[in-house]
């Protein structure tokens, strides 16, 4: 396994090479929530990735989409991709069955700064389909739990039915060495958890703001509110990392579709320090 490195390398990162999609087998399919499916894919050969990286998944005659890897980097034989059906390609991917094949190229992109976060507290904030890209980082943290201070997971979804990885969340909540709080935007009285928005959970969480690294994924509006709430709690934006979603088509910094200010998200992201991005996210035209 490669060593985990910070997402802020001192040397320019080499552009990922274009590679032909390889044919991977679908070994299992799990319905996580309405319209959200996890594909368990078996690569044809050795495969390594870093938490936060993505693969390009290809369906012949339909198209190709970037999908974050949602499994543990320690398990290279079952590579999970959690996909929300939001268009023709993702619909085709969500309809795959065990035994089907899918074209895969990758992994691409920057990774979560898991090693750089060691020694301090870690706050992981996910909204909606933002939890899957964070799951590999959580697996890595939990595999070397003693190297971190407090570990807090704050997760928000639309309704209780939309919560992803419910069994796993429940198991994590049962651990004594991490705090997991889940909230939904709307629920009926049968729901015994929180109702409210995920940024509001930050003021309830216990962490040392001077020694905290925050990893955040979700809709961009949620990210902005979360960064403000983290700032109000004393976590400066140079210690907040976000994973950005843009129109990534080639994944190898060729087509320019995923440009965000001076960055190409496929090459310079998807994981960025928020400080690096803040100026560009404030420009409406970008």
């Amino acid at each position, binding site marked *: 396994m490669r060593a985990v490195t910070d997402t802020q390398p001192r040397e320019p990162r080499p552009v990922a090479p274009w590679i032909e999609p390889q044919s991977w087998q679908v070994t299992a399919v799990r319905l996580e929530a309405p319209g959200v499916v996890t594909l368990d894919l078996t690569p044809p050969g050795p495969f390594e990735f870093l938490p936060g990286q993505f693969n390009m998944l290809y369906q012949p005659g339909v198209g190709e989409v970037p999908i974050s890897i949602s499994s543990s980097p320690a398990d290279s034989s079952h590579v999970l991709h959690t996909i929300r059906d*939001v*268009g023709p390609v993702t619909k085709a991917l969500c309809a795959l069955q065990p035994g089907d094949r899918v074209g895969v190229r990758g992994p691409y992109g920057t990774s979560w700064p898991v090693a750089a976060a060691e020694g301090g507290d870690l706050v992981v904030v996910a909204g909606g*389909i933002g939890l899957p890209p964070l799951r590999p980082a959580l697996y890595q943290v939990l595999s070397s739990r003693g190297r971190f201070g407090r570990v807090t997971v704050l997760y928000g979804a639309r309704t209780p039915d*939309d919560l992803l990885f419910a069994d796993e969340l429940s198991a994590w909540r049962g651990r004594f060495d991490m705090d997991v709080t889940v*909230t939904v935007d*709307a629920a009926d*009285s049968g729901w015994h958890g929180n109702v409210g*928005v995920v940024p509001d959970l930050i003021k309830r969480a216990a962490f040392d703001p001077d020694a905290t690294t925050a990893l955040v994924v*979700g*809709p961009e509006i949620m990210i902005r509110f979360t960064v403000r709430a983290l700032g109000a709690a004393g976590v400066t934006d140079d210690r907040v990392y976000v994973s950005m979603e843009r129109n990534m088509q080639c994944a190898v910094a060729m087509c320019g579709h995923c440009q965000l200010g001076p960055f190409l998200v496929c090459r310079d992201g998807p994981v960025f320090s928020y400080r690096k991005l803040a100026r560009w996210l404030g420009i409406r035209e970008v």
Partner: protein
Amino acid sequence: MPQTLEPLLRGHRFFAGLEPAHLSLLAGCAANEVFPADSFLFREGEPAQTFYLIREGKVALEIAAPGRGALVVQTLGEGEVAGFSWLIEPHRWEFDGRAVDRVRAVRMDGSCLRGKCEDDPRLGYELMRRFAGLTTERLQATRLQLLDVYGHARGH
């Protein structure tokens, strides 16, 4: 010497940094209360003469919708405050406040507080400032909920 709830108020996030003299005044309007799970702290439409500093447990703010049962608008937890209606006329609860689990709270008597605020405008300003901050925070959260940010994804 009779025990007061001043230490509890001092330890609650909402009153953090309040002058000791003001905390003493507020303690005269405070009482401890425990609510079993599924009991109601307050009901929609009833006169609102109190607010609650939640010390433990969760309170669901609910509204009953015909045919849909009770819909939870927001959940409040430890360190948070339930209730603005004591402050603003016509002093009626706008939602039900249900204890999701066992709730320990400090009940603040709104009539008593309003009287003390009239007598001491500095205390009144300080409380209004805190409640204004709280209402702004809740308004922002409500706006974010209304945006339904998780519900409108489009893509490939």
